[in-house]
């Protein structure tokens, strides 16, 4: 019995000899879920399968309880924003969204009203009468997002939606997705730029080589990699003294001196490190000016999982 908004079981998709997805298994329960992986990891293949554009070679995939492959009325509850440009260049932004709403089954009047609203939502009101061929890349992304939300879908699939959008647009689109989530919509968003997803949600699926490396809360995923060295950078006035103390700890596996006044520590138990460090600093009066961990970044988590965590 399927319970998630999206359920994938042993999903496999081949392109000839190339495996797009390799026994991909995952369950998406709702809210915003980030699909993270490098280019070629299988994100777009998964999105195309979700959008009903591809047929899986093996395994099952359901959306909102319906099989993803094939035709179905349930698709009116799904919004899809593809990665690549999929626009009629000769249409205006408004006509483009209206046309797709008409295909969704809305009356002309309601389609036009909803198109205007969606275009306003993504900030294209002033450009709505311009032909799509005159739109910038960021504007194209916005109008694609507009068509994906205009019919008020329950589930929104956004394949690299922030690609090509300027920094301000990224920020505001992020706010838009948060607003949609608060309105009860389920959103699956992919990106190969990890910090983008990190800003959107803690709920992530990490994908590489067509397989789900890890899924769940970012912090839980982080816990999965505690067996691997965790990198912590310290700035200190006396790096050799600090290194001497830290080197006595069992969970510290390596200490490097990347530059003057800097110390890089690799440890296997970061939580124990963070717990033990403050008493040490107080007791030994160590001069530690800053402490940062590159591993707090999703990029590092992914690197661990894809390179060493398999």
């Amino acid at each position, binding site marked *: 019995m399927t319970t998630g908004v999206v359920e994938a079981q042993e999903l496999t998709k081949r*392109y000839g000899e190339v495996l797009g997805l390799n026994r991909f298994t995952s369950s998406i329960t709702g809210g915003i879920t980030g699909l993270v992986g490098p280019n070629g990891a299988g994100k777009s293949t998964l999105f*195309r399968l979700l*959008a*009903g*554009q*591809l*047929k899986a070679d093996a395994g099952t995939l359901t959306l909102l309880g319906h099989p993803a492959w094939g*035709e*179905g*009325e*349930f*698709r*009116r509850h*799904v919004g*899809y924003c*593809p990665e*690549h*440009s*999929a*626009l*009629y*260049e*000769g249409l205006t932004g408004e006509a483009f969204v209206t*046309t*797709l709403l*008409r*295909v*969704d*089954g*809305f*009356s002309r009047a*309601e389609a036009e*009203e*909803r198109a205007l*609203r*969606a275009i*306003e*939502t*993504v*900030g*294209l009101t*002033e*450009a709505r009468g311009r032909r799509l061929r005159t739109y910038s890349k960021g504007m194209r992304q*916005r109008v694609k997002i507009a*068509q994906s*939300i205009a019919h*008020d879908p329950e589930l929104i699939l956004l394949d690299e939606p922030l690609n090509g959008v300027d920094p301000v*647009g990224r920020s*505001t*689109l992020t*706010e*838009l997705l948060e*607003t*949609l989530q608060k*309105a009860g919509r389920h959103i699956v968003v992919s990106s190969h730029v990890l910090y983008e997803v990190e800003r959107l949600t803690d709920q992530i699926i990490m994908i590489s080589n067509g397989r789900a490396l890890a899924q769940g809360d970012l912090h839980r995923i982080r816990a999965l990699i505690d067996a691997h060295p965790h990198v912590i950078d310290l700035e200190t006035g006396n790096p050799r003294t600090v290194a001497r103390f830290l080197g006595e700890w069992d969970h510290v596996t390596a200490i490097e001196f990347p530059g003057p006044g800097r110390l890089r520590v690799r440890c296997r138990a970061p939580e124990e490190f963070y717990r033990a460090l403050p008493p040490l600093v107080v007791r030994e009066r160590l001069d530690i000016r800053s402490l940062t961990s590159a591993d707090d970044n999703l990029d590092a988590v992914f690197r661990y999982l894809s390179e060493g965590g398999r």
Partner: protein
Amino acid sequence: MTISAPRYGSTSSERLGRTRRVLAIVRRELRRRAGWGTVAAVALAFVSVAAVVIVDAEFASLTRTLRLTTLEAPFESPIWPLLLLLVATSAGAGALAEDAGNRSIVLYLSRPIRLLDYVGAKAIACGTWILIAAAGPPLTAVLILTLLGVVPTSIAVSAALGYLAVGLLATIFLTGVALSLSSLTSRPLYAGVGIFGVVLSLFIGAAAVAAITGNLYVPYASPVTLLRSVGIGVFGGPSTPETDPATSAAVLAIAGAVLGAFAAWRASRVEVVSE
């Protein structure tokens, strides 16, 4: 530009049925296909075909030899089928190729629309333009001649039905050709060259081979010849058709249906096209 919070209406808005959704695509496609090439080809068909019918009928009326066979004038030369081929090329080349090229087919098919509905809507839009060019000019000419009192109503009705029948057959065949070749590429230009080139090559090639070999079956390979034969057959002479009209009609109808089915099959392979 700013982005605002979305405002949603009722999520339970009543949606229109399948037919209305298909018609929405048809309407959009009719407008998209109304490029200058299509409009010019249709206008050329109207001017040339209507003029031929009117002049022939006026002359026959003056010489008191006007009969139904007089109105077969459009089928006496290959000009009418070739004009239809121009319309089919212009209106049909981009029907599926353009959507595959700009990937908008992805957005269409992610909606609650069936693949057959999508291809069907494309066929209706393309076919409408071909039918306008195929049946519109002679029907208009007959209407004018009837209003002027040149052609008796009984002959006018028979002629109109004949034009409509041949026009529909031409539409079925040329729509099938246009969609099938459009489904093979993501470049409308290639599809256009293919549509025009294939039909024209068959016309010229079959004529040349038939002239050299004297084989009576070779002309069946030429859609232009088949269309002319059906037209001549429907109007009852006086020209002699190169192929049997009934067999020609069957060949055209079957070929059109098979090519249409092929286009639908190709569209169902969009996952390959989009990769």
